[in-house]
């Protein structure tokens, strides 16, 4: 393999475009040529750096494409009569004839092949049959860590990318010891934890009687090894797992060097000097060699080195995280196996777009609400033609993300229910989500399989409702904005309001048509998981035409630890029409009462005094109240 072929092959592997045979070829090549491993690592670092570099651009392209698709799709499609009948058939004849000839040649070629070739191959073959990927909403857990042992490799590569990018703030990888092993505590960007439950069904053929070794390499890089479960669907009684291993000792330069501590190595500098000795220690910046005869040590700056030569590749190093089982079967032949595990770095979020219809009626504003599911997979694995399920709800996790027992009730015992929900739906051919209640959550199942690529965000529409009724109010809350009221829409999540379905949490983006009919972005808000029957409160934007101010006009100490405060609240409406206003006045909390007020009020919670009224066009309203507080 020449260098160009090698670089192309490495590129295809990093891009996850390589076939299994190509991957095996690369692994074999790297095993035979340790020097080329350095090239692999350099290309891997560059790949990460490029991915990071284009991250912002990727978001921009996604936003531009998504917005353009949405708007263009609202434009009517003009249909024209199509060419059919004989003229169309005549146009199709030449390609049809060519295809027939090719097919005939292909059949001939296949018939000439050695028929015994397939029969002679008796090694174990593993074929993926289907996937089910259940993705969870990200869970806020403060800073988020990967506690994966092999995250050493991931973090090294990422840190290196950040270091090259000059961003030292990200270099916060801290090692720690847990259960006697060395783990990495690597903070990742988001403060939220995403995860997925993967069920991977495979057909394993040519199992022989007795002990067999199974290796699955195509698993997520962020797998939680303690959640891995493998069982046979064909004959569970004739399938015994003797041993299960998760091999994560990746053949990186650091892993190789660790195996060579106290063993002889040779370092070749950029000036072609060869320095030999036993490896005493190493870090990312330097290597220390010790001369076994004289005991002298020398520390070499790694930037000076071109090559590090090792005697041989240590055993038990793999190029990708691999699950390995030793299994025992009584009856030789094929078995269908189901592998299930939890992995990190997969998450989904709902996004909503709301087109506000222009209206002067404060109590009847109409919206067109569209919901999109955005699913992001950075787990390190691609799931081809997977059945996709999304769980809406915040899953309770009590320990660190990777310390889950495989018998966690929701996933272990809930599995049967998951399978029951996977039964073919009437509209299974369409890529739409069906929604069902599941335990304390809501489960959304995609109607048709979909490939979930690594480092891919997939967006699928899941809800559309037109003419949803909303109530408009201007909410003045001095804790959020001391001068301006915020235009807020209140939407009943009810069936008679064209909704009446649970709404997963996510961002809502508002657009509104201007005088030319162009939809313009007017604001953004977030909603939490909202069940049917609840009211959504959506803040669209601050208003500079409905403004307010509050002044303390009096303070009197009534007794020891009792005081009266008088506040004056003024709201002005500069609009040409009357508006509904809600004032959320801050109360001191604890023990208080309103002893005097010019207007009726309510107290929705212990920290809020609420006034609601309608304010005419270009009018002003003043409210004065006295609050007595005890402490």
């Amino acid at each position: 393999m020449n260098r160009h072929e090698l670089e192309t092959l490495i590129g295809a592997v990093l891009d996850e475009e390589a076939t299994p045979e190509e991957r095996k070829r690369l692994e074999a090549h790297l095993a035979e040529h340790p020097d080329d491993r350095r090239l692999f690592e350099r290309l891997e670092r560059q790949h990460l750096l490029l991915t990071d570099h284009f991250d912002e651009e990727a978001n921009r392209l996604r936003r531009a494409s998504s917005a353009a698709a949405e708007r263009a799709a609202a434009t009517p499609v003009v249909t024209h009569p199509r060419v059919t009948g004989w003229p169309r058939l005549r146009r199709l004849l030449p390609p049809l004839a060519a295809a027939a000839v090719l097919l005939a040649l292909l059949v001939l070629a296949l018939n000439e092949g050695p028929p015994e070739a397939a029969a002679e191959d008796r090694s174990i073959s593993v074929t993926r049959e289907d996937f089910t990927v259940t993705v969870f909403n990200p869970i806020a857990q403060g800073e988020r860590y990967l506690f994966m042992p092999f995250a050493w490799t991931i973090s090294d590569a990422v840190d290196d990318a950040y270091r090259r990018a000059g961003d030292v703030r990200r270099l916060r990888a801290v090692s720690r010891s847990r259960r006697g092993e060395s783990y990495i505590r690597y903070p990742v960007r988001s403060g939220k934890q995403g995860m997925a439950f993967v069920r991977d069904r495979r057909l394993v053929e040519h199992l022989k009687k007795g002990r067999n070794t199974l290796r699955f390499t195509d698993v997520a890089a962020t797998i939680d090894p303690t959640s891995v479960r493998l069982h046979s669907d064909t004959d569970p009684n004739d399938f015994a797992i003797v041993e299960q291993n998760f091999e994560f000792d990746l053949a990186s330069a650091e892993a190789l060097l660790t195996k060579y501590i106290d063993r002889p190595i040779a370092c070749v500098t950029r000036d072609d000097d060869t320095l030999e000795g036993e490896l005493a220690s190493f870090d990312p910046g330097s290597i220390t060699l010790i001369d076994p005869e004289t005991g002298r040590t020398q520390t070499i700056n790694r930037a000076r080195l071109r090559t590090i030569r090792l005697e041989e590749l240590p055993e038990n190093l793999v190029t990708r995280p691999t699950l390995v089982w030793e299994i025992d079967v009584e009856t030789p032949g094929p078995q269908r196996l189901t592998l299930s595990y939890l992995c990190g770095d997969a998450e989904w979020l709902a996004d909503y777009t709301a087109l506000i219809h222009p209206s002067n009626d404060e109590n009847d504003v109409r919206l067109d609400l569209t919901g999109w599911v955005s699913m992001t997979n950075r787990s390190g694995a691609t799931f081809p033609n997977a059945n996709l399920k999304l769980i809406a709800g915040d899953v309770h996790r009590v320990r660190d993300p990777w310390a889950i027992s495989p018998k966690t009730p929701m996933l272990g015992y809930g599995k049967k229910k998951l399978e029951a929900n996977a039964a073919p739906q009437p509209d299974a051919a369409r890529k739409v989500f069906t929604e069902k209640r599941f335990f304390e959550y809501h489960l959304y199942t995609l109607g048709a399989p979909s490939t979930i690529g690594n480092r891919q965000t997939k967006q699928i529409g899941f809800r559309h409702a037109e003419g949803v009724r909303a109530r408009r109010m201007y909410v003045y809350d001095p804790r959020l904005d001391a001068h301006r009221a915020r235009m807020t829409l209140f939407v009943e999540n009810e069936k008679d309001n064209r909704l009446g379905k649970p709404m997963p949490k996510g961002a809502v983006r508002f657009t509104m048509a201007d005088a030319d009919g162009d939809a313009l972005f007017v604001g953004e808000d977030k909603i939490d998981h909202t069940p049917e029957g609840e009211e959504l409160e959506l803040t669209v934007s601050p208003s500079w035409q409905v403004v307010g101010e509050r002044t303390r006009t009096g303070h009197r100490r009534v007794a020891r630890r009792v005081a009266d405060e008088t506040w004056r609240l003024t709201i002005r409406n500069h609009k040409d029409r009357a508006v509904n206003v809600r004032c959320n006045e801050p109360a001191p909390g604890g023990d208080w009462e309103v002893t005097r007020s010019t207007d009726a009020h309510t107290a929705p919670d212990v920290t809020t005094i609420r006034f609601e009224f309608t304010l005419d066009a270009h009018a002003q309203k003043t409210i004065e109240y006295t609050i007595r507080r005890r402490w």
Partner: protein
Amino acid sequence: MTDNITADPGETDIDETPDHDLIRRARAGDRDALAHWLRLALPAAAGLVATRLPGHRRGDELDDIVQETALRAVGSIDRLRHAGQARSWLCGIALNVLEEHRRREARRRNVMQTDTDHIERTEAPAAAAEGARAIDALQAAIGELPEAHREVLTMKYAAGLRYRDIAEALGIAPDTVKARLTEARRRLRTRLEENDE
């Protein structure tokens, strides 16, 4: 001792509902299908346009061009002959829109005779890289790549497309995409190593 082989199902996966099915439904008036297809196909066109726009102009201009591309595609989707080539057709529209946009911009600048044009021409990536930090060096190295290499890099990393989708969008073979990516990465590596030294 048993030999072990781990096998994949191969490259038979279909990412989404095939283009021709979505386009057929879009022509029949299914707006969801139309929006879905546009969401799938537009990133390639957007990536292609982004490659050809200078970095500091990629904000609103990119949005406008992508928007115009989508609108034109919707207006003429019925005239698309081969649904199998829909993505390269869309990229063609995007390039046409970009060309018209450039001509319009050039006319506007000629009339106004402002210094903007001068600034844009002189702010070459190579010049900007001098004395800049590593991230700028990468940006500069990407800027120095030939357009054919830059566009596959952008489509791969920014648009997140697979080889076959890039090939389809650009009307070239997947192996050509692979070769261009390899060459682009090699040039970038060489350039960055030169900077390090």
